[in-house]
């Protein structure tokens, strides 16, 4: 059983198709990375996989069941989503931010049960942001913010985590910290991760499987990082002139 299965899916908004003929699967307790040039439709694919928008064609399956058959409640007790939406939040502590992730569990007015408190403590500990709990979220560094958001994403104890370029605006050290935390999470909790990322140099370390989306919005190649991340193929996927990839990343 695959956690997520795309069967000949087209994605887009309204009548505008962004990517089509997508067929791939995401397996349990693995990190599957979605790579490809900007504008290939990675974000749209992730939104479709998480049920935030409907597929324009084909069928998306979550645990072998069509996503359209899930109620909102069922779906989002399984899936947690971390998109790149950055909003100004005003006065909020890191704890406040993570607490919102318990939306579906907490009381009518947002009151926390002992179980909610335990989950918040555990996820913040796991990501190493418990010490930041009373800090003003807006005053944190970008790296700390992303880790708090990661803690928020797992506080609902999801089976599947879908993330859109979570490390894009972090510096090298913070990227490593972030992906370390993510790998730990998969190892300890058996969470399934579908993640889009730009850091091809880190895919090798982080991902179990790689799905390549071409400029034309097709699943171009699927395989292990070792198979995919060859100079020739990277140059083709990202349309880089011969030899230039090696010069920068080699």
């Amino acid at each position, binding site marked *: 059983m695959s956690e997520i299965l795309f069967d000949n899916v087209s994605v887009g908004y309204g009548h505008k198709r962004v990517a089509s003929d997508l067929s791939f699967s995401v397996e349990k307790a693995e990190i599957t990375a979605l790579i490809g040039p900007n504008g290939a439709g990675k974000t749209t694919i992730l939104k479709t996989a998480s049920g935030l928008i409907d597929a324009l064609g084909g069928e998306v399956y979550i645990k072998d069941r069509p996503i359209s058959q899930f109620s909102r*409640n069922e779906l*989002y007790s399984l899936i947690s989503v971390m*998109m790149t939406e950055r*909003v100004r939040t005003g*006065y909020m502590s890191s704890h406040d*931010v993570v607490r*919102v*992730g318990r*939306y579906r569990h907490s009381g009518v*007015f947002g009151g926390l049960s002992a179980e909610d408190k335990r989950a918040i403590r555990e996820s913040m500990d796991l990501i190493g942001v418990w010490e930041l709990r009373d800090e003003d979220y807006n005053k944190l560094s970008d790296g700390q913010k992303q880790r708090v958001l990661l803690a928020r994403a797992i506080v609902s104890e999801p089976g599947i985590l879908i993330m859109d370029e979570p490390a894009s605006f972090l510096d090298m050290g913070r990227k490593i910290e972030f992906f370390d935390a993510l790998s730990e999470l998969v190892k300890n909790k058996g969470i399934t991760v579908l993640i889009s990322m730009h850091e091809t140099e880190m895919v090798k370390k982080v991902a179990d499987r790689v799905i390549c989306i071409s400029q034309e919005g097709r699943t171009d190649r699927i395989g292990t990082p070792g198979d995919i991340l060859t100079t020739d193929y990277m140059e083709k996927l990202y349309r880089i002139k011969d030899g230039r990839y090696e010069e920068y990343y080699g």
Partner: protein
Amino acid sequence: MKKNTRYILIFVSIILILIFLIIINIMTGSVSLGAGDIFRLLAGGHAEGISEKIIMDIRLPRIVEAAFLGGALALSGYLLQTFFLNPIAGPYILGISSGGKLAVALLMVGSLQQGFAINSLMMVGAAFAGALVATAFVLMISVRVRSMSILIVCGVMVGYICSSVTEFIVTFADDSNIVNLHNWSMGTFASAGWKDAYVYIPTVLMCIAAAMFLSKTIEANLFGESYAGSLGINVKRFRIALIILSGLLSATVTAFAGPVSFVGIAMPHVARSILKTERPVIIIPASVLLGAAFCLFCDLLARSIFSPVELSISAVTAVFGAPIVIYMMIERRTHV
């Protein structure tokens, strides 16, 4: 725990200020009343004949109206700010109050000419319809332009258009009713009576309760619509609820007191600033209480500074509210 103690202290202070303002409001007026009379009345006894009449029939209904409608305005502003994910939104500045005002003016003049009697519910209904039409117009603009400042300019324009049409209607209304209509269209709590209270008190309380039940969802929505959606929230239904609630609140205010400026924008901001939190479950009651206190304070000034001449309530709320909004915009510029 330290945080909670601070919240409680702030809430107690706001409530004390509110009580203080109520007492001052009862005492102040063309006939000044002593504290003795008031306490005797509150204790269930009777004050000297005329004092009791002044308090029960003139001052108290006005105080109750200013408090409830002030709270309604602040909540309406807060809900609109949630809707637009922007702190510089309110029923007055977006032209929603003026839309309600126009509809009520039409109803009033229509009733005079056609000779049918109007009641409080019809006024609220008309104001609600007008508010929703104005909101629909603002929303139509908001999907076309993604800029909040342009949206606000458009809201102000809608407000001006509605106000000038109202002015036009008022000018051609029957002579005897012009004075009343004119005062109301400028915004005032002077016409307050107990019978209106049967309409606005339940409406406002119902809306506050509904907003409290939405507080958890409002909080999730602070992080953006996609995020709210990914928690399983039906974002569309939530946004419709916000518009209906804020429209109903501002319509209730407009029907009874006319358009009142700046309370809706400024009070949620004051609440956020002093409580240093964004949590709706705290900010909603705080905004309501602050809105009530602010309107009591402004109404006190409106009727007492140039007594016996009364100022329109918006003239006073603007003096205090506008600087808060300007400060807020400067703060936002420097903090983003």
